[in-house]
């Protein structure tokens, strides 16, 4: 049905990836269910950079995996260039799998110690049987390594992954996705494993890629870092979007009390500034979310209404959405 519209939709217009009322439930022992993602609707605009922020347990990584079709939605849809990704088959599916790449957090954590940079970077290309000749593969690797500033490529191509520093490994992980020539790159905590002095190097690579037209989705708890290279910020809490808007607006003037708490807690390299913990307690168990507003037990402004009535995500100001009864 939607297929016909999608086919006639010109490339380059409309969101490149979008989700509609996406839910992902996991079955637990004893018949319980855990909603890791609970009704998320998002549009990812071509050539833009979207940040998804939240604490651990907020469902960020599950959402990322669902965008890649690695995780199946329980209900709701993910569309890539207007097409439902769960319905893609054959050539279209392979094209999707090449176009949307994810760089996982600490991707070489349990890597085979004999694996080289060449093996790692060509893995997707070889598995997808996109290219087989050794010469062509070497050219692809060499190009990808240059793009992540591991140069000269000859110096790195035959090194073992285990012999690289953290920053170099993270560049290889990005290079491996770039080798597929993706249009969307989903990054899960791209720099949080890296030392401060080398983080900026990886971020500048992402800035260059962005200029050359790659669409980014960055999943992170580190708001200070995503501040610079995301256009839009989505704040998640217990599987739901609680706030979204232009990153600079959300960071400088957050509307939802959870976003306010998250941002007030970010430490700043300035001794005259002190972090504040505005939210009480810890994130609830996603298998038993609180009634009404899920944030109400931790919220400094909670009222009776918050305990009983679930707030809807609404446009509080132009282009600024928040799900709080009292946001204005």
């Amino acid at each position: 049905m939607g297929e016909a519209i999608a086919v006639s939709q010109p490339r380059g217009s409309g969101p490149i990836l979008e989700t509609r009322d996406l839910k992902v439930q996991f079955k637990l022992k004893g018949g319980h269910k855990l909603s890791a993602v609970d009704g998320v609707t998002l549009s990812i605009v071509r050539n833009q950079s979207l940040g998804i922020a939240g604490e651990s347990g907020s469902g960020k990584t599950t959402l990322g995996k669902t965008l890649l079709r690695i995780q199946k939605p329980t209900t709701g849809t993910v569309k890539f260039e207007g097409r439902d990704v769960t319905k893609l088959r054959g050539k279209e599916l392979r094209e999707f799998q090449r176009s949307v790449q994810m760089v996982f957090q600490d991707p070489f954590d349990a890597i085979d110690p004999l694996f080289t940079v060449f093996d790692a970077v060509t893995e997707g290309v070889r598995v997808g049987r996109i290219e087989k000749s050794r010469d062509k593969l070497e050219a692809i690797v060499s190009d990808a390594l240059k793009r992540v500033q591991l140069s000269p490529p000859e110096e790195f191509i035959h090194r073992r992954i285990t012999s690289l520093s953290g920053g170099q490994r993270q560049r290889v992980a990005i290079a491996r996705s770039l080798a597929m020539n993706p249009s969307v790159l989903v990054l899960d905590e791209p720099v949080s494993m890296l030392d401060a002095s080398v983080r900026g190097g990886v971020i500048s690579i992402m800035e260059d890629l962005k200029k050359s037209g790659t669409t980014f989705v960055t999943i992170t708890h580190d708001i200070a870092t995503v501040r610079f290279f995301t256009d839009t910020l989505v704040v998640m809490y217990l599987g739901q979007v609680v706030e979204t808007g232009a990153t600079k607006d959300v960071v400088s003037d957050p509307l939802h009390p959870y976003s306010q708490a998250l941002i007030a807690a970010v430490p700043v390299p300035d001794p005259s500034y002190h972090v504040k913990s505005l939210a009480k307690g810890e994130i609830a168990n996603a298998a038993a979310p609180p009634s009404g507003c899920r944030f109400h037990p931790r919220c400094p402004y909670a009222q009776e209404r918050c305990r009983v009535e679930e707030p809807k995500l609404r446009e509080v100001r132009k282009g600024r959405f928040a799900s709080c009864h009292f946001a204005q």
Partner: protein
Amino acid sequence: MPSATSILSVRDLHVTFSTPRGPLYAVQGISFDLGEGETMGLVGESGSGKSTLALGILRLLPLNGKWTAKSISVMGQDVVSMSERDLNSAVRWTKLAYVPQASQNALDPLYRVGDQFVETVAAHAKVEREDVLKKAGTLLEQVGVDPAKLQSYPWELSGGQKQRVMIAMALILEPKIVILDEPTTALDTIIQAQILELFKQMRSFQKLSSIFISHDISVISNIADRVGVMYAGSLVEMASVSDIFKNPIHPYTQGLRESVPDVRKNKPISFIPGTPPDMVNPPPGCRFHPRCPYVQEVCKKSDPPLLPYPGDHYAACHFAERWVKQ
């Protein structure tokens, strides 16, 4: 840098690990004083030797670690020649307590929280079980954990709760000095802010002197009175927290500060080219020279010592004078 009110003083501490590739020089001649009531932030990148320095001071190094020091004095008492037994009964935990890195995993999963308090105390003092549990309950209340959790197993607690328990456990024998190694690193931002606030309360309440280790200079800026910056096994700079941020001398400190994003500003993040050295084959001369934007010939040959500059400011750079505020 002797100081009249120094509660912990370390002189020329070296720690070397034997590794299959040869000796690894993890801590290379560190000297400093911790003032009474002071919080010293120790910052440095992964592998710079922060944890090794803490373990060296406590003399809790793994078997392949060898240490030497001219002196390590804890509340006026030199511990360099003390026996293991005396250290346990007269220094560790009663005077100087320690919250280890990744301490969320330091609790034994097989024992209830209360029993772990009892065990810890038994290793360092003679106190009745009932008294330990009573004290532990009071401390848990102070750190914001329900005292009923003494009956719980560690896996029944969240990461933030475990960190609070570890802080309470460090304080059970009323030490004067606490060393906390990356106490907030594995925690979410909001929980980190809660723990930082808690630590500030506890230190003024218990009149603690402390060393707070973190790789995150923003966390350090929140909590420290003085800051020691480590690079490749050495202290390269040490100064008041405001001097470290406003008038840094060492080019590494300058670069590190510029590499850290400030959420309030929309400024791109810079970085220091290259990576920290291999500590088995460190570069000759100043170990920062291969990454230093101001490197000169002398830096490649001679290792600059940590020298004092006005305002109780120490730095190890051949060209420190250039950045000293007149």
